[in-house]
């Protein structure tokens, strides 16, 4: 038994069986991936969808109640594969398209020329630099700042592998200028905005249909399904915001620790919190590995949510994520064991004392500013009393603070 669903194909409602829908959407997705690199991709795709819709209407007019798998297979055979449509592929036009469309150049991992994940060689190909130069730069930057290490793992996880010859040519592309990058970012933003809008319109349409009660039960089912998906997306966005905030908080804390602590101002003086470890290098490595350890899973979940939010067909390289995480874990454990006796206890103690001094001084002043209220008729004893009380109060408050 198969479910019948209603879909919107080129602006037309089509009843289609679920399996047929799956193969159709797979086919359209392949085409979309294929044509997304060309300027006219969207338009070509719309035309093809319109044509398929027309073929389906022909079937329905002949008496089919809905579109089944064989109808879809027939339509796909008639339209041909993405490769069949590439009649205009020659070096000239390809070059022209790449020059006109910056997003046709893509970042890949070049796994044919790799040490770890092929990220450096991919970047080298993208920016037209020699791979060894990129590698040396990356190693130097990792040694001195550490930041590219996280970036490396992130890129490893999200960049696709360049597998087909098409990928390889796209990996190299033409020359990339800042302008191209700005353009492609703008393009990306427009796409995202459109996707969000489409999603909202779809849900609104289905809600409208549902309230009209004129439609059959099957469209209501798909309407409810869409509402559930939409709610799931809102929930996902909430989780995303929470995770991003947590991630930022951790990053700020650990980076502050790595660079020597927070500056904060309890009252008058400026105090620097001490770093966890004595040696700055160890401290840096410790914070960095702990940060990666926390950020890798958070980042992966965030990325997965984003993919879900925008119905993206991209995949996460779970293997690479896990491997990166294991490397970080090993690094973290190693550093923890190595620096076990190296904890900055003294400076923390010192910090605590400074804090105590500062805050007691501060609170003391404030309390003294309040005019003492004589409790007993004897003014002298009252004054002494207040003074004593302010000292004990201060001590109490300080211990509470700590």
């Amino acid at each position: 038994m198969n479910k019948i669903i209603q879909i919107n194909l080129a602006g037309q409602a089509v009843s289609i069986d679920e399996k047929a829908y799956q193969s159709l959407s797979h086919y359209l997705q392949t085409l979309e991936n294929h044509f997304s690199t060309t300027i006219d991709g969207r338009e070509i795709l719309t035309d093809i969808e319109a044509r398929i819709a027309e073929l389906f209407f022909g079937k329905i007019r002949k008496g089919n109640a809905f579109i089944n798998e064989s109808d879809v297979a027939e339509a796909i055979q008639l339209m041909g594969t993405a490769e069949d449509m590439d009649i205009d592929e020659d070096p000239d036009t390809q070059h022209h398209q790449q020059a006109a469309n910056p997003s046709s150049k893509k970042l890949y991992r070049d796994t044919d020329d790799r040490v770890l994940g092929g990220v450096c060689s991919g970047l080298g190909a993208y920016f037209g630099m020699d791979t060894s130069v990129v590698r040396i730069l990356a190693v130097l930057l990792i040694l001195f700042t550490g930041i590219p290490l996280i970036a490396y793992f992130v890129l490893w996880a999200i960049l696709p592998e360049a597998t087909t010859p098409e990928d390889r040519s796209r990996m190299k592309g033409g020359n990339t200028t800042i302008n191209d990058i700005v353009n492609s970012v703008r393009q990306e933003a427009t796409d995202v905005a459109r996707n969000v809008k489409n999603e909202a319109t779809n849900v609104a349409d289905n809600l409208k249909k549902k309230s009209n009660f004129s439609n059959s039960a099957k469209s209501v089912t798909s309407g409810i399904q869409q509402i559930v998906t939409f709610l799931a997306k809102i929930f996902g966005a909430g989780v995303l915001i929470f995770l991003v905030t947590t991630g930022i908080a951790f990053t700020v804390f650990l980076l502050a620790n790595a660079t020597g602590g927070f500056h904060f101002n309890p009252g008058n003086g400026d105090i620097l919190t001490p770093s966890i470890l004595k040696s700055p290098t160890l401290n840096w490595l410790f914070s960095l590995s702990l940060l990666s350890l926390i950020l890798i899973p958070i980042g992966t979940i965030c990325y997965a949510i984003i993919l879900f939010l925008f119905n993206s067909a991209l995949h996460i390289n779970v293997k690479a994520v896990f491997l990166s995480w294991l490397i970080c874990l090993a690094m973290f454990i190693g550093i923890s064991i190595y620096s076990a006796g190296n904890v900055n206890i003294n400076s923390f103690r010192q910090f605590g004392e400074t804090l105590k001094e500062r805050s007691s001084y501060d609170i003391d002043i404030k309390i003294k500013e309040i005019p003492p209220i004589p409790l007993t008729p004897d003014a002298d004893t009252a004054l002494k009393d207040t003074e004593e009380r302010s000292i004990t109060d201060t001590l109490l408050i300080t211990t509470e603070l700590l």
Partner: protein
Amino acid sequence: MKIENTQSQMRKGVLEYCILTLASTGEVYASDIITHLKEAKLIVVEGTLYPLLTRLKNAGLLKYEWKESDQGPPRKYYSLTEEGTKFNSQLADTWTELSNSVNQLTQLK
């Protein structure tokens, strides 16, 4: 060297000329163009046509209008632009020359 590549290279230029010629007869619908091209065995699958149509349109040689259809959604009807008409007549000359030349050459052996 693959025979398919050479064949598709040969077909490519001719295909553009044929599409323009078909469009020169007035307003034509994409599936009409497809029917003719299929009959002439110039294309195998319909998908081939759509990238070409879009490209010719973007190059300013073709234009289209949406027209209501009694059997479903509105359709795009293509016709030649002024530039397209000029382009097409130039291609027609080139084709005549080319087919003459090729005929002459192949008759030599």
